[in-house]
């Protein structure tokens, strides 16, 4: 999974979402864990322990589509929708949940940077990973990027 910059979307009221619901055999547990890890890595949100959600972009639709294929190959079953929220305000609430989650990780990076022995290599890798899940282009992310750039040491440009 490489750069996701093209997928950063604004979150107006009528933003479509992609929803994935799936069932997979209990055994082997490694299959279940694989799918779970991939969903986490995509930054998908699990609603009510039932439905996995991502903002709908060509890229997220494609990733969910391939995941659905993989679930089928693991003897499971997956349903994939694109949909819009109908209740007033819920789209904003959902968008905020996505943002809150990436912001929490951005904040972790900022906190860790305060340490004298901060591992900039590890932190910049962590930044790249969270940015791949930052579908709404959080302002905090831009701040973290600037902090990392100025923390790299050496010559001041």
């Amino acid at each position: 999974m490489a750069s996701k910059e093209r997928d950063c979307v604004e979150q107006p009221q009528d933003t479509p979402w992609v929803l994935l619901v799936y069932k997979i055999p209990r055994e082997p547990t490694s299959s279940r864990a694989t799918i779970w890890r991939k969903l986490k890595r995509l930054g998908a949100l699990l609603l009510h322990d039932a439905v996995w959600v991502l903002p709908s972009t060509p890229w997220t639709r494609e990733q969910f589509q391939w995941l659905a294929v993989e679930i089928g190959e693991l003897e499971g079953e997956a349903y994939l929708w694109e949909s819009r929220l109908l209740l007033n305000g819920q789209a904003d609430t959902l968008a905020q949940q996505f943002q809150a989650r990436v912001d929490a990780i951005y904040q972790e990076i900022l906190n860790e940077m305060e340490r004298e022995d901060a591992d900039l290599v590890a932190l910049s890798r962590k930044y790249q990973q969270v940015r791949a899940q930052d579908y709404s282009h959080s302002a905090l992310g831009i701040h973290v990027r600037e902090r990392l750039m100025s923390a790299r040491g050496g010559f001041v440009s």
Partner: protein
Amino acid sequence: MKWVTWEQVGVDRMACGWLIMKYLDPQAEFLFVPVGYKPLTEGAEPFDIPGVRLSHHRGHCTFYTMLREYDLHDPVLQRIARAVDEADTVQDVMLEPAATGLDVLCQGLRLISPDDQVALERGRLLYDALYAQFASEPTQG
């Protein structure tokens, strides 16, 4: 022969197109249909479309599947498959830093190309370059 895939080619399909033209079918003719379009053209081999033989399998990209289906065991091709896997699918383990750049360049190549045909054609240079560079480095298991 004819090969058919969905429109808007990216990193995986550019790699597949390169592989087809270079190793499998120098006279290949490519057809591009809208996402989800059915029925697929009779007599054309579909690739990178969900559910077909030459597609994602077990979490691997279509390029990886093609190497397996056509018994291509060149370690340089295997390494390119690793990079395309990392660029195109969700992977826990990231071993090829080139993957991110490869993905971005393929997207950009599609953006500056008038259509998929031209994008695939231009992608060949990119994959020739990647192959040459990987081939010049010590083989990685």
